[in-house]
């Protein structure tokens, strides 16, 4: 070690300088190893990165100090020959503070004047700042949780913050799975009401009588069972935002009441004589064609005019095919960290299939497909056989194939008769795995990449009894 530390660089300077003090000034972790990969010398940056000092690390094999994945999985120094070129690898290390740090490692042979290898020079670069930049970059094509880089989506990202600043009613339209809920929440979060409540009501989920009481509240004794006063969602959303999803399913009688509210901002609970002045911004969403509903008399025209102050239409995924790849990568990244997997990407064949699929369920369906594939995949890349069978079996979408317009909805677009639902697919997957493992549940769970309890729950859900 002493000889190396005493090394002098004569031709450059009038007087010899210490090697350690020279490499200390380089803002990159540097270690010098002997041919047995023992640490001879390291610089200050390396000390601060790993937490090991020169005195502690001297003479210790580098894999004990660097503690990098590449040290364990296959140290490149082991395969280096006299004529080998420097190697650059991305890996990670765990430092003394127990932090897992992504790093880029460069390894080169050190040679004496006779070109004989005498050791190794290793540089270790902290990749955290670069990874953070990457993470920021990946959010570049987004607004809140909406992702996209197609011109249609970019237009929406530009206009959403503008709409958010006003108190006007908003009507969001778009097919199922296009992100209407996310858009509504994004508007609320970007508005001055962000710190106030965001109350969501699904107009299609409750029967008419219950919905009225749910929205506007009731007084004690208003009807049988009304044992106490109920404030109602409008009142709960006071000073905040009320999000009415599936507004197309709102019964006509309640449409009148909503119309009254939009006019005078007063909420009259059932059975009450006095009203409550609610300061609520209304955002409504639907996948139905409200204009068509107005024509058939199922939706009030005057309510449509009042809701339609600001209108946002979220395009279906098939109209922004350029976003498919971006969304696939986004979901793969987030699912990788959620399921603690390390899937690198999609094979070219898989990508072709996924890009050609029409996605009648839009982004939600794409996310579900990604989740299925990440769960099933045990390889580095997602292959076609990791995708749900109904996608692989489906013929690629051709330009001439016209899907039903958005408002006619998903109901008219049917998938192939066989294995058409996600549930059926999953059930089949479990059955196949059970057959493969001879009915052993723990093996089956392992094969599927699930926990035992997940498998048990899903078996119960699909009524699979052993």
């Amino acid at each position: 070690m002493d000889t190396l530390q005493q090394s002098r660089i004569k031709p450059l300077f009038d007087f010899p300088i210490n090697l350690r003090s020279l490499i200390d000034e380089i803002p990159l972790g540097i270690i010098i190893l002997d041919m047995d990969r023992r640490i001879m010398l390291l610089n200050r940056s390396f000390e601060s990165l790993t937490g090991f000092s020169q005195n502690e690390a001297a003479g210790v094999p580098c894999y004990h100090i660097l503690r990098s994945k590449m040290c364990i999985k296959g140290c490149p120094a082991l395969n280096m020959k006299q004529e080998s070129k420097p190697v650059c690898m991305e890996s990670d290390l765990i430092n003394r503070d127990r932090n897992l740090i992504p790093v880029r490692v460069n390894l080169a042979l050190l040679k004496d004047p006779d070109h004989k290898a005498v050791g190794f020079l290793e540089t270790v670069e902290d990749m955290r700042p670069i990874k953070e930049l990457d993470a920021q970059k990946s959010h570049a094509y987004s607004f809140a949780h909406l992702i996209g880089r197609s011109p249609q989506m970019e237009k929406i990202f530009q206009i959403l913050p503008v709409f958010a600043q006003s108190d006007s009613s908003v009507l969001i339209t778009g097919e199922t799975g296009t992100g209407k809920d996310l858009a509504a929440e994004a508007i609320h979060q970007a508005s001055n009401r962000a710190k106030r409540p965001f109350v969501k009501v699904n107009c299609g989920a409750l029967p008419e009588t219950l919905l009225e009481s749910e929205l506007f509240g009731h007084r004690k004794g208003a009807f049988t069972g009304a044992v106490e006063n109920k404030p109602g969602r409008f009142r709960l959303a006071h000073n905040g935002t009320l999000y009415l999803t599936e507004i197309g399913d709102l019964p006509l009688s309640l449409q009148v009441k909503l119309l009254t509210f939009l006019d005078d901002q007063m909420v009259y609970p059932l059975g009450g004589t006095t009203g409550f002045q609610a300061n609520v911004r209304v955002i409504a969403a639907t996948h139905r064609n409200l204009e068509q509903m107005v024509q058939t008399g199922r939706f009030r025209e005057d309510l449509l005019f009042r809701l339609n102050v600001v209108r946002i239409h979220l395009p279906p995924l098939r109209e922004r095919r350029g976003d498919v790849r971006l969304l696939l990568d986004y979901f793969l990244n987030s699912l990788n960290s959620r399921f603690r997997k390390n899937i690198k990407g999609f094979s070219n064949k898989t990508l072709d299939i996924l890009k050609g699929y029409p996605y009648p369920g839009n982004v939600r369906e794409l996310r579900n497909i990604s989740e299925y594939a990440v769960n099933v995949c045990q390889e580095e890349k997602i292959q076609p056989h990791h995708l749900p069978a109904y996608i692989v079996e489906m013929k690629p979408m051709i330009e001439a194939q016209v899907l039903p317009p958005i408002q006619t909805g998903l109901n008219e677009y049917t998938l192939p008769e066989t294995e058409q639902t996600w549930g059926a697919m999953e059930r089949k997957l479990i059955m196949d795995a059970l057959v493969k493992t001879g009915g052993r549940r723990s093996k089956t769970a392992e094969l599927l990449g699930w926990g035992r309890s997940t498998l048990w729950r899903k078996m119960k859900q699909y009524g699979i009894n052993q």
Partner: protein
Amino acid sequence: MPEKILIPLYGNDVAPRFDLSTEVLLTVRDKNVSDGEEKIVVLSQASAEKLCHLILTEEVDVVICSGIEEEYYQYLTWKKVQVIDSVIGSWESVLKRFYEGTLQAGDILFDEKD
């Protein structure tokens, strides 16, 4: 009261990484018995979660390891497993030092000759 100790291995040394170890040494230290029984368990794959699971199912009292992520360190500590981390050296010398009662986190038991 016997004490169960687990050391992730890399050859004869304490493994540099807890999460990448595929072999572990399990030993029971009983003060009434001079030599504890040692057994080496080979894991099907390297995984910090599986190793934590093994530690809990085997009711290990002490884990001696080198690099371990904070998340797993805190989890094991929370599960009342003593973790002595950042220990570098051969498992024999580490275990000897532990039995002597002088092993501490961050100890480097490497000589130039090792």
